[in-house]
């Protein structure tokens, strides 16, 4: 080890060991907060969208989503495709959905001829309740009433965004049903067919595609839309643990599933605006982190500057008795690295042992997602590295400024 580094390390360890605990604690506290600023602020920003992505994946698309082609209402040869899916070992569960746009109407019994009908445009979906629940678990999102069972007759589960009490938004062209709760009879119209059904449950989710739908048991929905060929509009696949959704997608495409359907992973199916927002929020997170880094470097600069100013006499004495300025600078660099590393280490423990699990268990209730804290280890370690490098520079510069002052002036406290 070079002599100046050895002496610098010797001085730094003594200075740290015998420093005031309060001062050391305060500096490390600042470093921990800086680290959290670097990691948590951007992590929450990204996590806000990650929560939305996770919700869409778990409640709607699952790992792989197969949907009808843009110019088709349904997936042709669905039974054969379902058969193929059932033979894939990577697929743990799947659910097939019939889907057709329609209108739900609430006040048809009580309104006068002159009254405006209380209607809402909805996506009607026919599902196998058990299979759907095993893939998306939307049965757990029921907030009133209960989820569908296979033998439910003329019963419907309705998404919260179709009801005024859950989605009180007055947007021109967008209407919701009023005074509809569990047990209320409503009319569903698909094309020219209208059927009166009873609301069995109300489903609340932050995923638009889930909350804007009305769900029926598939056998009845088939009769409502008049389809007997077994062709569905959507199939959501949940892959087995460890399996790669992209590999499953590729297998399906290789077996010809792409001829009659769009086969996408949950990532492929993300709306463009979501992808754009993820990129934008990532950029914002980096910008905030950069500001955090600047604040950290200024903090360390001030701390080391004040420390070096108050110790100027001793720096002068060190130089006076022949200790090289580089050794003294090295001691300040070591101290800065110590503060940055200990602060980062405590920050890492705080983030990975407490904050990430906490936010995972208790997501932040944002209006459009359940926000979690996203802190990929690689990115976090990169930020630790950045923090250490910044701190070293911020510690070195003020130390150098004081060390370069005239030795005797420093010893005598002259300016």
């Amino acid at each position, binding site marked *: 080890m070079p002599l100046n580094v050895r*002496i610098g390390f010797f001085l730094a360890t003594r200075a740290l*060991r015998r*420093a005031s605990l309060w001062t050391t604690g305060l500096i490390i506290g600042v470093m921990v907060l800086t680290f959290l600023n670097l990691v948590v602020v951007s992590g929450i920003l990204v996590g806000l969208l990650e929560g939305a992505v996770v919700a869409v994946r778990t409640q709607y698309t699952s790992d792989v989503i197969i949907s009808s082609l843009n110019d088709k209402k349904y997936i042709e040869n669905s039974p054969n495709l379902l058969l193929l899916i059932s033979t894939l070992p990577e697929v743990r569960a799947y659910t097939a959905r019939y889907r057709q746009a329609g209108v739900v109407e609430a006040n048809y019994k009580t309104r006068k001829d002159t009254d405006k009908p209380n209607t809402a445009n909805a996506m009607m979906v026919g599902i196998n309740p058990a299979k759907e629940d095993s893939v998306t678990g939307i049965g757990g999102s029921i907030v009133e009433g209960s989820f569908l069972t296979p033998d439910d007759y003329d019963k419907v589960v309705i998404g919260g965004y179709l009801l005024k009490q859950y989605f009180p938004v007055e947007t021109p062209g967008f209407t919701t049903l009023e005074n509809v709760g569990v047990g209320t009879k409503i009319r569903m119209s698909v094309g020219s067919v209208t059927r009166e059904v009873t609301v069995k449950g109300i489903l609340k989710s932050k995923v638009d595609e889930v909350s804007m739908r009305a769900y029926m048991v598939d056998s009845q929905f088939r009769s409502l839309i008049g389809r007997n060929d077994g062709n569905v509009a959507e199939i959501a696949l949940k892959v087995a643990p460890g399996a790669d959704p992209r590999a499953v997608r590729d297998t399906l495409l290789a077996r010809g599933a792409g001829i009659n359907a769009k086969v996408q992973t949950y990532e492929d199916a993300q709306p463009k605006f979501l992808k754009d927002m993820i990129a934008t929020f990532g950029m914002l997170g980096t910008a905030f982190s950069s500001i955090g880094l600047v604040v950290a470097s200024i903090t360390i600069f001030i701390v080391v500057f004040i420390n070096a100013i108050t110790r100027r006499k*001793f720096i002068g004495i060190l130089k006076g*008795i022949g*200790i*090289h300025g580089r050794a003294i600078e090295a001691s300040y660099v070591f101290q800065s690295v110590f503060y940055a590393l200990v602060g980062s280490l405590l920050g890492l423990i705080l983030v990975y042992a407490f904050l990430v699990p906490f936010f995972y268990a208790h997501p932040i209730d944002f209006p459009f997602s359940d926000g979690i804290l996203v802190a990929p280890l690689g990115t976090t370690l990169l930020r630790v590295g950045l923090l250490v490098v910044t701190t070293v520079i911020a510690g070195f510069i003020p130390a150098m400024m004081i060390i370069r002052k005239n*030795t005797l002036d420093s*010893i005598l406290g002259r300016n």
Partner: protein
Amino acid sequence: MIETKNLTRSFQNGDVVTPVLKGIDFMANDGEFLAIMGRSGAGKSTLLYQISLLDEPTGGAIKIDGHDTHRMSEDERMRFRLNKFGYVFQDYALLPELTALENVALPLMMQDKSRKSAYAQAERALERVGLGHRLHNLPSQLSGGEQQRVSISRAIAHKPAVLFADEPTANLDNESSRKVMDTFVELHKEGQTIIMVTHEEPYAALADRLIRLDDGKIISETKRRG
């Protein structure tokens, strides 16, 4: 041997120039114990700082063992201070976060001695001034006299060519001052060159030669002994 020729040192504050040393011709021989006296502001500490390479003169020349200090780079001056000189300051000038042993060992380690060897040498130096039982005490845990003796240990541990002392007893009580001066006398008997600035006549009387300064000039030079 240290020799100065027409040494001057002035301080400038804005447009005001204050000359402190006004042409000092001075010589200190090897093995000599030299005392410098004078009233406050006479320039005695300033002279000590010039010849001990802690400061740079405004004019004139300083030669140490034939080396013209004017030609030395800052690094060379630093190495000279580290290897050839020892310093005892009025206020002890110990580093508060280092123990007595570490304070003394530090310059030895800077001379590229291993920590073990530096600590052993430092321990011997501290034992010599009667502080063998205070090795691991911080300066704040020592009395003023003990701190000054640690400072002397640090100054002599590497066996310097010249020991510079700037009013080493000014902050001490009589008992502690006597111990410090006894140490100086003993070191001198062993051949140590000592240049000491002091206010106190009885301690100056222990030196071989006494130089008196006034208004930046040497006004008298007295040989006390042999």
